[in-house]
Structures are given as C-alpha cells and as structure tokens.
C-alpha cells in the first residue's frame, strides 16, 4: 500500500500528494507524512517545484482539516447523542484548545482527525479553530518538506525515526490524559463520599 502510494507521487505528481493529505486529515489511514517527506526529497532533487509543492500540501491540509471541522459541526447532534467523550473533548477545546489544535497538526498528528471532528461538533467557533490550525499546518508542511529535502538520501530511516517519535509523543499524551481523567474521577468520588458522610 505504502509502496503503491509512493509510486503514485512521481507518476501522478502533486494531485496524488493533495489527495492523500486531504483524506489523511479526515482520518483515512494514509501515509501522508511519508508522502510529504518524499515530496521534500523530490523538491531537492529537482523533480518537483518547491513553491507549488508547499502550497499544494498546505492547501490540501487546511481544506482537509476544515472539512473535518464542518463534518463535525453537521453531525454534532448525532455525535453529542452518541458519545459523551466528544462533549468532554469539546469542552476542553473550547477552554484552552488552541495548543491541542496546534500540536495535533504535527507533534501528536494521529489525534488530528479526531480533534477536527470534536472541535466542529462542540461549541468551538470556527475562528478559534482556524488560527492554531493554520499555524500547526505551517509547521507540519515546513518541517516535513525541509526534513525530506535535507535527508532524502535516507528516507526510510527518517520516516521510521519520525513515526516512532510521533507515536511516542502521542502515546505519552494519551497516557497523561488518562491519568488526569482518573485523578479527576477519584477526586470526584472522594468528594461524593465525603458529602455522603457529612449529610
């Protein structure tokens, strides 16, 4: 699958890059980051034009993210009825979601599609979503294209290292969230026990 996609890049060029980034932003499991690294390597080897490549990647990511946001908004009634988690994430995003939205573009990228949906489904306004989203995608595109251009001769090594790093960052984040929720849960339990004894 990955091989086939990588083959699509030189054959179909930027439309292939655009499509895979757009779909990946919506949660389709495609190696968009790997494609972007490879595009960076192709830019360095003169096989792709630099400005157009960067603009294509950035534009596709922004359109993908905002499509996810809109999907969340349109499906908000359905999502709110069926998942309590979405509401909780939404409340958190509204409060101090800028960092979560920014970092989920590149550092904890696997959470990106879920954050798009949750932000759309919750009360987060489009303006609050857009600024950290744009900033995050600038970092993602800038980082991956430059890394690809600089280390294109060791692409598999680079991609392996990056995916491990992103995986580690994501699992650590999820662990931190889980610990926090557990603590809150315990505090609430204790409070309710104390309240029960008091009355």
């Amino acid at each position: 699958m990955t091989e086939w996609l990588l083959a699509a890049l030189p054959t179909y060029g930027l439309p292939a890059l655009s499509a895979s980034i757009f779909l990946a932003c919506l949660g389709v499991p495609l190696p968009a980051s790997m494609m972007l690294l490879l595009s960076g390597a192709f830019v360095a080897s003169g096989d792709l034009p630099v400005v157009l490549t960067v603009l294509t990647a950035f534009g596709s990511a922004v359109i993908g993210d905002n499509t996810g946001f809109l999907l969340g908004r349109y499906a908000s009634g359905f999502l709110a009825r069926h998942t309590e988690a979405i509401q909780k994430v939404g409340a958190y995003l509204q409060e101090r979601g800028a960092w979560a939205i920014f970092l989920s573009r590149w550092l904890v990228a696997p959470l990106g599609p879920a954050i798009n949906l949750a932000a759309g489904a919750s009360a987060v306004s489009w303006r609050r979503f857009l600024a950290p989203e744009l900033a995050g995608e600038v970092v993602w595109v800038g980082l991956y294209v430059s890394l690809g251009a600089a280390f294109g001769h060791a692409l598999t090594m680079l991609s392996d290292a990056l995916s491990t790093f992103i995986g580690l960052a994501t699992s650590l984040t999820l662990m931190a969230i889980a610990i926090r929720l557990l603590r809150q849960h315990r505090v609430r339990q204790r409070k309710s026990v104390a309240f029960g004894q008091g009355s």
Partner: protein
Amino acid sequence: MLATGFFSVRGVVQFIYWSDPAHRDQSLEPWMPLGFVARSYDVERDALAAALELSPGANKGVPLEDLAETRGQEFEAFAREVEAVIQDLRSR
C-alpha cells in the same frame, strides 16, 4: 502505557538497525525518478543521466520504471545497469 513501551522499544531497535551503514543505501525501486536516485547515492544527476545516455533535464520526475520501458528494457535489467553506472561514478 503499553503503547509507550512499544514505541520506546521500537526506537531502540531502529537505532541499532540504522547504525549499520549497510542498511542505509536504499535499493532502487521502480517508482524512483533519476534525480532522486542520484541524490540518494550522492552522484551527479547529469553525470548519471549522461552515462545512461539520457538527455539531462529531460527526465525530471520520470520514474525508473518508465525510463526502462522507453528503452525497451525490463526494470530489473535497467536497475542493474543504473547500479553499475553509480558504482563507476563513485569510484572515479
């Protein structure tokens, strides 16, 4: 926590694997354009194209597979030829 453990172990395994320089040369794949190959193997793109009797610059973004086809070759045969040329260019 399991996932964190998994990624930590994976990091160590990858570090050991990539520490071996023999693993770093990427083998030629059908999708690689000539310029990408030249960069991967650290040889001049135009020199590589010239040695393969291809016009420099005319094959931008064309994958090896298609180059082989226009030359009426199988990919494997063409890849071996490219590898031989790279060895030759490197030893100069």
